């Protein structure tokens, strides 16, 4: 007897099955996009004799439990914090050895000597909301980024944040080591000096 040929499998519903799977994966996919504000914590050790910081080199930002902002003993809106921080960092009021050649600020002798000396101190209440905390941090980092961008624009003709991001993503074309050196030079001009005081207990 002649062998009967096996009938062909009907592939008409293949598209339907594939569509079903496709929709499943479409729905479950979350393309991860985690980004944030990076920070280095200070190591946990006792400092024997802490350096004395002059009052004028200190920029005190405190936030109370109702998310109100007090900057240098004055109430301030969050929107104005960036401007105030830039003004403080860029002041360059120092003379002689402490003069700042690249600062474009008011050179007020009552404000910071130079960006290397200037310290921003943030004090939170334990009941401050996290979104306020992040907003304050974000504004202060933005102030630093603004000044760093300005200097790198002046010295090298590109923006600090853009080049840094390109290197991080691996999409920088050009001499990476050279750019890395230049980034470090800019960071030395405006070192990120943010100090966080131990938060107060509420109501104190």
């Amino acid at each position, binding site marked *: 007897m002649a062998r009967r040929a096996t009938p062909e499998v009907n*592939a008409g519903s*293949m*598209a339907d099955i*594939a*569509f079903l*799977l*496709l929709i499943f*994966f*479409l729905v*479950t*996919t*979350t*393309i*991860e996009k*985690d*980004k*944030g*504000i*990076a*920070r*280095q*914590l*200070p*190591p*946990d050790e006792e400092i024997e004799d802490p350096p004395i910081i002059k009052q004028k080199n200190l920029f005190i930002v405190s936030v109370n439990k109702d998310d109100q902002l007090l900057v240098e003993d004055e109430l301030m809106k*969050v*929107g104005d914090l960036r401007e105030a921080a830039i003004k403080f960092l860029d002041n360059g009021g120092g003379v002689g050895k402490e003069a700042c050649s690249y600062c474009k600020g008011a050179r007020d002798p009552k404000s910071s000597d130079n960006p290397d000396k200037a310290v921003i101190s943030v004090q*939170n*209440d*334990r*009941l*401050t*909301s*996290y*979104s*306020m*905390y*992040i*907003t304050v*941090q*974000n*504004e202060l*980092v*933005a102030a630093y*980024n603004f000044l760093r961008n300005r200097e790198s624009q002046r010295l090298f003709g590109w923006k600090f*944040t853009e080049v840094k*991001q390109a290197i*991080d*993503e691996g999409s920088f074309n050009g001499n990476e080591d050279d750019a890395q050196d230049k980034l470090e030079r800019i960071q030395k001009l405006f070192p990120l000096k943010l100090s966080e005081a*131990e*938060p107060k207990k509420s109501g104190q």
Partner: protein
Amino acid sequence: MSKFKKKKGGEIPAVNTASLPDIVFMLLFFFMVVTVLRDNNLLVQNTLPKADQLEKLKKDRSVFIYAGKPSARYKDKYGTEGKIQIGDKFTDISNVKFALTEAREALRPELQDKVMIALKVDEETKTGLVTDIKQQLRDLNMLKIIYITAPGDPTDQ
């Protein structure tokens, strides 16, 4: 002569759909490859605060800490105070060190000393909880942290 009869004009031929499964399969494979199934089951509310001065997170060397109020279906059991979640379970502040050491050991050995702690904290949490976590991290000497945020302008609310 019927042989040379003109075709009945006007009718558009049907589109050939034979390659449709191929196209769909191509898309399917693309999504299968890029899909990352959530590895952490979130037990806390997690609406991230907004910020615009952002850096990218290096995924292979990071350990996630979540914090916030317990989400709706755990409210009865755990209350509404801010809680910390590491991995798949709630962790007490005194247990954070242990959980983190464990999480660090799960990373690739050459990256273990470059570990970065990614803090995913709900925007309504109190800062005190975050401060406690940071103190634990300092004790453990894991000093690199990143506050994960959503992109956006934080000052307009």
